[in-house]
């Protein structure tokens, strides 16, 4: 954390920015000299679990337990039951995806063998693969390994026919709503977005809530998630399937952005949504100010807990609806996965650990104990998840996952093109058509690695 903050601020100074550039790229590999460093990671070594005592350093952010604690120590204990001779040392990672990436990039690009395994965002694989900061895994696990995870999830972790990360946990969004207010006004749970807007407006008119519908509209990754799933709702996508062309500016993109803009224009969503990240929208909902909320699965635990929410017991949670006349049920795929540092000196042990967490053993621990969803089919379908009284868990299998356009090694620029332009539309700074035309140019530049 200290380090990343330092590098961030170093990048800030105009003069010092150059130094930061060099800090990122300056140092050559400190790893084992000789051919291994030149030709790539030693995949043969990675395929063998060492017999002698080994230490693996795992860089990971907190994984929430159902009881509010941290799941990481338990995962390590379970791993040690199977591999008692492999010690796992935990390195605390920043929870913020950008901060974590900046710190890791500096470390791994310069050839550091530590951490051996690092937990990362599921939007990183293409970028980390392109920059050779993650170990390719296909040859290590067998072909049928990946079939046990949701297709869109594995797809997100892939780049050019290789898979670069072991899935750890999955996140997906839901529509949360105020049961009591809908009942009071005799309104159904919205079947499509248009109905949601009208219902919200009705309840607002009656003075029963300040806001109709809150979501995440700040200039950041979360807005890309909101837009991606809404475009999918409208039957479209951001990029073509091969990721080479732009489709965002088609009719689906127009419908999605127009809808968001109109929500704000009609006063159903407050103008301040342009500054909202997850917590802001959740606060608006748990304080009773909003009827509807779009948020990730964790929001159920917070919003339905009397200690943290004024509306506990009065809320419902459903799979997101779609647009009228379109099939809905989409939800943006989020999640975290484990990468193996290709410079690790303990590749075999590192792979064993990262794999363990994604295998049935690790995933069932998540299913039983975690406040997050395990992506493995067996775990997702287990009674712990399917039979959970948390609808965000029991309904999880019904969400149709849509990945963000993550196959570009320049995904951050791709995402930025989406969220800055969408933010301009909802803040009223730009018309839908102008924004989509600009987004097309930005996205094309991003795909070429020329976007700023």
């Amino acid at each position, binding site marked *: 954390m200290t380090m990343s*903050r330092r*590098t*961030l*601020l170093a*990048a*800030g*100074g*105009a003069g010092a*920015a*150059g*130094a*930061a*550039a*060099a*800090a*990122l*790229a*300056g*140092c*050559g*590999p400190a790893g084992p000299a000789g051919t291994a*460093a*030149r030709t790539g990671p030693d995949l043969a070594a990675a395929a063998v679990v060492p017999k002698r005592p080994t230490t693996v350093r795992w860089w990971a952010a907190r994984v929430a337990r159902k009881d509010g604690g941290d799941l990481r120590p338990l995962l390590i204990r379970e791993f040690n039951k199977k591999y008692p001779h492999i010690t796992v040392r935990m390195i605390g990672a920043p929870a913020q995806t*950008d901060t974590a*990436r*900046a710190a890791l*990039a500096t470390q791994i*690009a*310069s*050839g550091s063998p530590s951490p051996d395994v690092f937990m990362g965002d599921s939007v990183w694989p293409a*970028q980390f693969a392109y*920059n*050779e*900061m993650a170990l390719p895994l296909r040859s290590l696990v067998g072909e049928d390994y990946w079939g046990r995870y949701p297709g869109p999830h594995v797809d997100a972790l892939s780049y050019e026919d290789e898979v670069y990360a072991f899935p750890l946990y999955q996140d997906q969004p839901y529509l949360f709503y105020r049961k009591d207010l809908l009942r009071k006004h005799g309104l159904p749970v919205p079947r499509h977005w248009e109905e949601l807007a009208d219902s919200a407006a009705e309840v607002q008119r009656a003075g029963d809530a300040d806001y109709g519908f809150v979501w995440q509209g*700040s*200039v950041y990754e979360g807005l890309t998630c909101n837009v991606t799933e809404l475009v999918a709702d409208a039957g479209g996508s951001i990029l073509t399937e091969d990721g080479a062309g732009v489709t965002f500016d088609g009719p689906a993109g127009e419908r999605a952005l127009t809808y968001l803009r109109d929500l704000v224009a009609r006063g159903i969503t*407050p*103008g*301040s*949504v*342009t*500054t909202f990240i997850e917590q*802001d929208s959740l*606060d*608006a909902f748990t304080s009773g100010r909003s009827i509807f909320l779009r948020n990730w699965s964790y929001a159920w635990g917070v919003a339905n807990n009397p200690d943290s929410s004024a509306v506990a017991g009065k809320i419902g949670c459903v799979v997101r609806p779609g647009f009228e006349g379109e099939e809905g049920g989409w939800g943006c795929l989020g999640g975290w996965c484990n990468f193996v540092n290709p410079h690790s000196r303990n590749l075999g042990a590192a792979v064993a650990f990262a794999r363990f967490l994604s295998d049935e053993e690790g995933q069932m621990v998540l299913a039983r104990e975690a406040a997050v969803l395990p992506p493995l089919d067996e775990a997702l379908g287990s009674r712990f998840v399917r039979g959970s009284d948390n609808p965000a868990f029991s309904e999880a299998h019904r969400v149709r996952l849509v990945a963000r356009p993550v196959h570009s090694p*320049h995904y*951050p*620029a791709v995402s*930025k093109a989406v969220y*800055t*332009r969408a*933010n*301009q539309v909802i*803040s009223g*700074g730009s018309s839908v058509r102008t924004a989509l035309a600009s987004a097309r140019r930005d996205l094309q*530049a991003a795909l070429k*690695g*020329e*976007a*700023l």
Partner: protein
Amino acid sequence: MRATPDFVTDAHRKGGVHPTARSAKRSGKGPRRAPEPRPGGKSIRDRQARTGWLYTTPALLVVAAVTIFPVVYSVVMSFTKVRLTHAGTQVTDWTTANYTTMLGSSAWREALLFTVGYTLVTVAVELALGTAVAVLLERLEAGRGWLLALLLIPWSLITVVSAQLWDYLYDATYGAVTWLFGLVLAEPPVILGTPVPAITGMAAADIWKTTPFVAVIVLAGLVRIPREQYEAAEMDGANAWTTFRRIVLPALRPVVAVAVLFRVLQAFGIFDLPFVLTQGGPGTATQSLAILGYRALFQDLNIGLGAAIATSTGLLVVLGCLLFLRVFRSQVDSAAEAGEGGAA
């Protein structure tokens, strides 16, 4: 990095002569002559100089390693293709592509415009306010020390921390500033979510923090002006404004120059305020050059492009400062001359 990057060859320097042709040419020329040692000259001064260099070498090496090398290397990277690979950072092929991409990008032009405009406005306001505060403080008989200490609190806060405070104040739901606006306006603005209020809000946070810094520097200059000059002006019948313009201002020239230079250098590299408050938004309204560079470098890992932004930003601010010093000096000089002429 490769031990010997293939771009550092004479072939490139001489405009792309084929390597074999180059080596043939060089072998024809024979070995380069080394500079001849100077005969004699073993005076005491030379010896002292040598000792001096000997003592400072370790420090200079450290400076070179942590400052000069990174700066030079990032300039090099800005003119090359940079790829992160398993074998380390590969720096290959001279190219100006990073700069053409940057110059052709509307995001860069917008960021430049924002950064320059923001710098000019905030520094001007800080200078005016800071000078006013300093003049006031200088006339205070009692309590100057206390006031000074109080004034310095904003300056002593780490910007990331004070930015968080401002973030609370500006919050669109429960922020105090939003609430205040709500008292007079029917619809309070979403301060950090609308371009003009966001830029203004950020500038206010900046001015709040750095005005005391300017005030302290200017105060240091004020107390150095001899009393007699004021008395002389008074005897000549100069009013307060004339005295300020013809005596105080010229005398303050060096300190104001220092204050402005410090402020311009900092304001031009503005990063922490937008990073905490707006992430460059709404849209791209508060995206400074430093934010742009950070994103290219640390989010997109587009190192060549990021280095180009960093290098050009550095160059621009240095040029800007030189230009300022030149203009400022001539301006104040002419004011001083006019002042002397008037007094005569």
